[in-house]
């Protein structure tokens, strides 16, 4: 019997090795679920996200994206579906509007009108005008702008590296909840990296613990 749609793997990794940083014997990440990767700094979490975004390639082993080996998929086409947000948010030259639209421009999608831009800004709790220069925002505001940029793109898979590291506790709760709800509503898969186990337990359905480049535990999480 075929497994339910939401149990299908979005990524399957087999014998994946990258330098001396990461070695994964076998790993399956479920589609349309929220998965957290936890572990100390330098444990290989970010490297794993970069491998899934094909920003780097493994030295050996195979990564499958929806049953297709990653090496046979065009990198740019993959990244337009599997979008990554780095820990330090990237801000491009220009104002907030230009920074929001740049993801859609890069992925050659239809640009959103100002009303839609304002609604995603509101969703991440950023009370700013679209014409304001983006480089003047604080670290936390830049992180929220980067999340809003991803919301506009509605990617099939979100790869978030410490998405709330620059946010205070209250804003973190508010923004993370919005992102998770948004992802669920749109049938997206969310994979996020965090060093905070409480945060993983609060938002993820599956928690993968990484230590010294190897997976030490995978557990299903019963959260609200």
């Amino acid at each position: 019997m075929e497994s339910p749609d939401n149990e299908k793997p979005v990524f399957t990794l087999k014998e994946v090795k990258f330098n001396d940083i990461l070695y994964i014997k076998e790993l399956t990440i479920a589609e349309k679920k929220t998965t957290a990767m936890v572990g100390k700094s330098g444990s290989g979490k970010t490297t794993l996200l970069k491998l899934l975004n094909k920003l780097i390639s493994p030295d050996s082993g195979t990564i499958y994206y929806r049953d297709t080996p990653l090496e046979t998929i065009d990198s740019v086409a993959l990244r337009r579906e599997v979008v990554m947000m780095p820990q330090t948010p990237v801000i491009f030259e220009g104002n907030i509007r230009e920074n929001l639209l740049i993801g859609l421009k890069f992925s050659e999608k239809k640009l959103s009108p100002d009303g839609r831009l304002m609604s995603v800004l509101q969703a991440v709790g950023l009370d700013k005008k679209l014409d304001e220069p983006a480089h003047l925002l604080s670290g936390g505001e830049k992180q929220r702008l980067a999340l809003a940029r991803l919301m506009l793109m509605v990617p099939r898979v979100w790869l978030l590296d410490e998405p709330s590291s620059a946010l205070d506790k209250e804003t973190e709760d508010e923004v993370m909840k919005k992102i998770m709800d948004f992802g669920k509503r749109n049938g997206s898969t969310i994979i996020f990296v965090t060093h905070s186990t409480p945060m993983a337990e609060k938002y993820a359905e599956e928690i993968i613990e990484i230590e010294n480049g190897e997976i030490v535990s995978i557990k299903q999480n019963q959260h609200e």
Partner: protein
Amino acid sequence: MNKSGIVDIELWQLIAAYAYVIVLLVIVRIMGIKREKIIVVSSIRMTLQLIIAGYVLIYLFNHPSFGFLLLLFLLMEGFAINNTFTRVKVPLNRELKKIIAYSLCGGTTISLMYFLLVVIGGNTWSDPRYFIPIAGMLIGNSMTGISLGINRLIDSMRTERDRIEGALMLGATPKMASKDSVNKAFDASILPTINSMLGMGIVFLPGMMTGQILSGTSPLIAIKYQIAIMLGILGSVAFTVLIFVHRAYKVFFNKEAQLLLPEETDTKK
């Protein structure tokens, strides 16, 4: 003064010009600026190079030969390519060297041919009197432009690494992701030419025009030549750098559209 009314510089007058440099050397020494050696070396090198160039030009003007002209043109291109390699602050891999060589040759040849065949026109295009000075000016300026462009491109691809990778993560092609760096390289290349054009006639009189006026040419003719050559230089620098950046940014990525590390770029085949 000679028969054409031009003041010929006698040997003692030339020596007087060198005496001026000696005064400069004394001042530099007193002020403790340790640049005496480079001033002496560059003065001597310039003198020798110009004496040789002068005799080569006299020979060419008296015995015009297309083969010799072509050889001289290739030598100028070769010297410019080699000089560009030495002006770049970082080691260049084979791929980048190849791109520099054909960008410089392509950009300058297109501009030179357009200038000689269309702007100057007639049957004079292979006349050494036109061909050599114009080729020299186009190649020289394009060499400076491309050197600035390479340095800027390499620098920007390294310092803007996070931003370029950030763009790739969002689905940008390498071309989109490196657009800013490419634009900065282009700006850095043509800026000296643009600045020179903006100051021309107000801040200074350009060398070629001054030379023509001193040799008895009407200022109006000299100006027309200067305008044409400046537009030629602008075109040549821009073409050279456009050909360069159009290809060069690709060296920084692999076939998986991944941004290479600087050491990987150095060894990329």
